């Protein structure tokens, strides 16, 4: 038998390193520690950031087929579909332009009235256009990844909206990408106001299997709630994170269940999670424009879940 068929060196007799069991015990304990730090204390962020930097070249490489597919899809898509899409966009633009003119007028009027009453001016918000790259793989949460990150000035806690309403909130910021937790995630909460009745409430995600039928529910609504099917919910802005007045959802079921004394009010998000590719990232309003250390603590105001506030 030629020597080439054997391993170059025989296995060592005595120096075999730590046993598999001891390695398992040490690394298992380390994994448990990391999980506790990540879930409860938010101290694992540096570890996560370091690993994310290591992983980013691989992720970039793995994204290339997706980019290629999207590009070729756009390039080879039929002329008719493109024309139909353009017509739709133009109609939407006209509708929005009409609305924008009214809003411009109202904003001007609002400024003057506020000045008259001696109230504080509304803080201007910074918005950035972004593209959704892909869904987060974790099947336990609902999230997507966008192509803006720390280097573009995105901060945790920012609201993410599409052309129709709030899509979710930035929870983790990596160097060039960010993770966005969607509205329908059970761990996600936001302060909303019913535009018809002016009633404020807290909206939480409802656990569902697929993004497509994402829903949110208003908790702690009194049994004699005035909410009706068809009411539109917008952000109320009292959480100090989301700017006020972003459309969120439309109520589609109100049940006066008596068991716990609260009404069950469920709503369907207005944002089109399944079809949207381009989104806007709006900075949290309660923060000074550029101070990264303060930004790290901000999202806890919007994520009121006791289990896991936003990291």
């Amino acid at each position, binding site marked *: 038998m030629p020597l080439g068929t054997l391993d170059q060196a025989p296995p060592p007799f005595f120096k075999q390193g730590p046993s*598999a*069991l001891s390695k398992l015990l040490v*690394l298992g304990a380390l994994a448990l520690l990391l*999980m506790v730090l990540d879930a409860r204390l938010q101290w694992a962020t540096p570890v996560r950031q370091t690993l*994310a930097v290591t992983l980013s070249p691989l992720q970039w490489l*793995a994204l290339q*087929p997706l980019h290629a597919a999207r590009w070729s899809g756009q390039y080879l898509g039929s002329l008719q579909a493109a024309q139909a899409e353009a017509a739709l966009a133009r109609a939407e633009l006209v509708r929005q332009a009409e609305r924008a003119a009214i809003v411009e007028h109202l904003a001007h009027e609002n400024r003057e009235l506020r000045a008259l009453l001696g109230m504080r001016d509304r803080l201007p918000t910074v918005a950035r256009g972004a593209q959704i790259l*892909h*869904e987060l793989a974790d099947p336990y*949460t609902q999230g997507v990844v966008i192509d803006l990150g720390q280097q573009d000035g995105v901060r945790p806690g920012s609201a993410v909206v599409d052309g129709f309403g709030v899509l979710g909130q930035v929870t983790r910021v990596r160097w060039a990408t960010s993770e966005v937790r969607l509205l329908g995630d059970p761990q996600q909460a936001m302060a909303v106001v019913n535009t018809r009745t002016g009633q404020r409430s807290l909206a939480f995600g409802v656990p569902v299997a697929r993004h497509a039928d994402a829903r949110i529910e208003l908790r702690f609504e009194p049994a004699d709630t005035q909410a009706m099917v068809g009411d539109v919910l917008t952000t109320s802005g009292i959480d100090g994170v989301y700017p006020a007045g972003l459309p969120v959802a439309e109520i589609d079921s109100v049940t006066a269940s008596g068991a716990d004394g609260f009404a069950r009010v469920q709503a369907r998000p207005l944002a089109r999670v399944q079809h949207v590719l381009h989104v806007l990232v709006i900075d949290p309003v309660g923060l000074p424009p550029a101070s990264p250390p303060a930004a790290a603590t901000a999202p806890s105001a919007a994520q009121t879940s006791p289990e896991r506030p936003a990291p």
Partner: protein
Amino acid sequence: MIMRAGQALLLPANPVFIWGTLMGVLLFEMALQMAWLGQAAWAPDLLALTLVFWTVHQPRRIGVGVAFGLGLLIDVHQGALLGQHALAYSVMCYLAVVIHRRLLWFDWLRQTAHVLLLFVLAHALQWLVRALAGDGGPDLWMALAPLWQAALWPLATVLLLAPQRRAHDRDDDRPL
């Protein structure tokens, strides 16, 4: 080492090939997830399969430590709880080290049954950890993932051992 009946004498495994397949599978899995699978809970975890395969066949090179490191990378990529995959992969690969001498004496069907148990355990562990962290459960389709993974075991054996099955001295006149 006792040779079992009919065991082929394999060439030594190339470390570059081992690490190349691990990285390649990681890359392939990420690309597949980002482009197509999204959040599909039923998707087989090919990286876990490759890890168990190399742990069984090359326990001196790939083991619990590598599994832990790759698990952490997967956690960061998926945006999951940090340490969730690391723990599951570590336990899975430890058990693979424990059974590695026995496993290869079985035929492929029984081998598949053995690794199925490992994969089920890894998924159950992740589910338990997330339930304890308060994230609820995904849909029941997740139960399919270990089945796919185990079903791919014979294929992995054929593909990943192929370079070691080559003739040690090439001879153009010999049929093999």
